[in-house]
């Protein structure tokens, strides 16, 4: 971390300052671990897209218009398999339904905020920025402008990384450097960020069990939404019972 960034982080006065300098530098400080993760993942996506036959400008267009890493990986895989445009769009919708729940959770921390800000903020809600911003909002000393900076700094890095990946794609052998594991590694770490107590661990285990069962029994991608809603609901009732018995 540069001295400039760390002094901006350590000074309590700056927490309340909403001038563009501290907002951007604190946003960047918080966003950099996301960006560090986005660079290999974005490069990996770009390389895979190039090897599937997408031109670099199509990768750029996809990252700007979509900005949803897992949906983009799925899109590339489906294009490689020759899926139709409508099938890919529908799958994207299903995979991104989880953001309904994340966006609703963020809404708790954004009361009485104007629609224009929310429309801009919504564009940058990802699994990663969600996990980081929620943790920051919970600790307090965090506000919507810093959260917006996190969203859009990581967004910009993502776009650049995917384009770079597609430009260098032809130089990379398929499967080299473990690029296929980039997304899995990221999900593992984001999961760790969420383990804030016993009920979270139990809910995570329930979701794993249900999703594997659902995945094996029901074709398609409904296991993601289905298992998460079931597990969170079971976890919620367990939490209620635990609180009553205490």
């Amino acid at each position, binding site marked *: 971390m540069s001295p400039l960034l760390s002094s901006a982080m350590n000074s309590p006065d700056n927490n309340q300052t909403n001038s563009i300098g501290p907002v951007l530098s604190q946003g960047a400080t918080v966003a950099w671990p996301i960006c560090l993760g986005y660079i290999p993942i974005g490069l990996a996506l770009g390389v895979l897209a190039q090897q599937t036959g997408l031109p670099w400008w199509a990768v750029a267009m996809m990252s700007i218009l979509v900005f949803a890493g897992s949906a983009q990986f799925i899109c590339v895989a489906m294009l490689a398999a020759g899926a139709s445009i409508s099938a890919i769009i529908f799958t*994207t919708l299903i995979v991104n339904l989880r953001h*309904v729940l994340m966006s609703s959770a*963020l809404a708790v921390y954004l009361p*009485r905020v104007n629609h224009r800000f929310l429309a801009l*903020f919504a*564009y940058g809600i990802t699994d990663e920025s969600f996990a980081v911003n929620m943790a920051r909002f919970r600790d307090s000393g965090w506000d919507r402008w810093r959260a917006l900076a996190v969203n859009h700094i990581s967004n910009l890095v993502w776009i650049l990384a995917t384009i770079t990946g597609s430009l260098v794609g032809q130089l990379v052998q398929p499967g080299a450097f473990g690029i296929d594991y*980039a997304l*899995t590694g990221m999900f593992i770490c984001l999961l760790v960020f969420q383990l804030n107590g016993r009920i979270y661990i139990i809910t995570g285990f329930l979701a794993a069990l249900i999703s594997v069962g659902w995945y094996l029994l029901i074709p398609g991608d409904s296991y993601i939404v289905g298992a998460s*809603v079931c597990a969170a609901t079971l976890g919620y009732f367990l939490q209620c019972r635990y609180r009553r018995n205490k």
Partner: protein
Amino acid sequence: MNFSDYLLLFAGMGLATYLPRALPLLYLAHKRLPQWLIDWLGLIPVAVLSALLAPTLLTDAATRSLSLGKVELIVAIPTLIFALKTRSLGGTVLVGMVLYWLAGLFI
């Protein structure tokens, strides 16, 4: 696919991505949520991430069957420990990739 095919595909995907993110925020941010909903939503991220991960680690995608002992699962154990110890997102991704790459070379 030509330019307009890509534009159609990505515009559609963009809408399918943007609307689930924007609508709850625009609709819910002006209301106070009930406590039960806040508690329930608090458990959603861990559930979603776990639901995305578990089939990747524990099943075979080609045959859609249970597959314990996959390289993905074995690599996930040290990756998980690294994430728990360091809580570093970028570091975890890199460690996972390198281990997976090495595992592919030697297993």
